[in-house]
């Protein structure tokens, strides 16, 4: 073994330097591999705002809406808005009773809202319950009307009792 004897003879600090080079190469490959793997796996927007994927915010915001919003209804149904101003229901948004209408707003002619059954819809708010705030108009429908449709007497958009319906 001529190499060994030569190193021993000179007392060189960098004897067997080949081992260190190999070790350095292994570490370098591991570091480069980690960096490449990390770049591939961690989304680019991670850490944009904090310890989470920043792009998730805009993905959640991109969800389509189902309720069109009162201002959209008002844009076309001005006649109903005028009627509502006559009564207490002026503060109630259209979709509170008529349900989600974004599809109707997108395509008014082919998507038509369902006709409401006032015997069910009105009672959701106005059925008497001891937990409802005092002063809120409420009736026990069984005693009040015997379950007939409320719009027999009341106009839902301005719910005063109409004289011709009263008999």
């Amino acid at each position, binding site marked *: 073994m001529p190499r060994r004897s030569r190193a021993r003879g000179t007392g060189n600090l960098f004897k067997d330097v080949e081992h260190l080079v190999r070790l350095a190469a292994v570490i370098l490959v591991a570091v480069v591999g980690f960096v*490449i793997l990390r*770049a*591939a796996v*961690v*989304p*680019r*927007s*991670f850490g944009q*705002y*904090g*310890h*989470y*994927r920043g*792009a*998730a*915010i*805009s*993905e*959640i*915001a*991109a*969800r*389509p*809406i*189902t*309720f069109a*919003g*009162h201002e959209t209804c008002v844009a076309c149904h001005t006649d109903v808005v005028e009627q509502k101003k006559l009564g207490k229901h002026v*503060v*109630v*948004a259209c*979709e*509170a009773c008529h*349900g*989600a209408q974004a599809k109707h707003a997108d395509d008014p002619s082919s998507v038509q809202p369902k006709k409401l059954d006032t015997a069910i819809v009105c*009672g*959701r*708010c106005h*059925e*008497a*319950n*001891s*937990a*409802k*705030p005092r002063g*809120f108009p*409420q009736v*026990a429908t069984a005693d009040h009307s015997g379950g007939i449709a409320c719009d027999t007497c009341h106009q839902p958009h301005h719910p005063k009792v109409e004289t011709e319906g009263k008999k």
Partner: protein
Amino acid sequence: MEITRRRLLLLLPAAAVAWNYVLAGAPDAAPNYNLTEHWWGMLIDISKCIGCGSCVRACAEENEVPEGYYRTWIERYHVADWKIERPEVESPDGGKNGFPPHVDDGGKNFFVPKLCNHCADSPCTQVCPVGATFVTPDGVVLVDKNYCLGCRYCIQACPYGCRFLNPKTNTAEKCTLCYHRITKGLTTACCEVCPTAARQLADLKNPKDPIHEFLKTHTVQVLKPHMATGAKVFYNGMDGSVR
């Protein structure tokens, strides 16, 4: 082209950079919306809630909440005379179909709508091991369903019971404060349909928002203030029995 070792080594970083762009995701959905200009919360006036369940139904429809789970719900409180520490609370189907008519059985009766409090120092986001739930710069607590593992830590951590595991996706789910609506200038679905304006969306960073005047002039409380969660759902006229 033959893949030599040299070419492979050149190709790998290039592929990594390309994949990075793929992972970056969809572009901004609401380009005119500035995250830093808002700080969202909600105002709930208990003295106005009639327990109609419109908010629960609207939330389920707007957000496709699975049957039997609720992102918002209504509780009916019954406090017998002085037993303020022992309220009787019921919430049949989360109040989705309203409440059975009650005869006045004495004591105090009222409705309390509940939802995620969008806490500024939220315990639920702190426990997530993968960064799948977070408070956005505009103060909304959201879940990244592509990152959520479904480990349920956050569900246990929420002191208000506002989270659940979606049985279809097996990821944690919660109220997003209708993030897809408020970033488009609309109000939340629950606030939209509330017939008595018992629920109102509030932007605490907007000095013109009426909430500031309301908070100044009313007796307002948050749920479980001793938890120091920085809750941003403010309750007006809330009884001390509410948990």
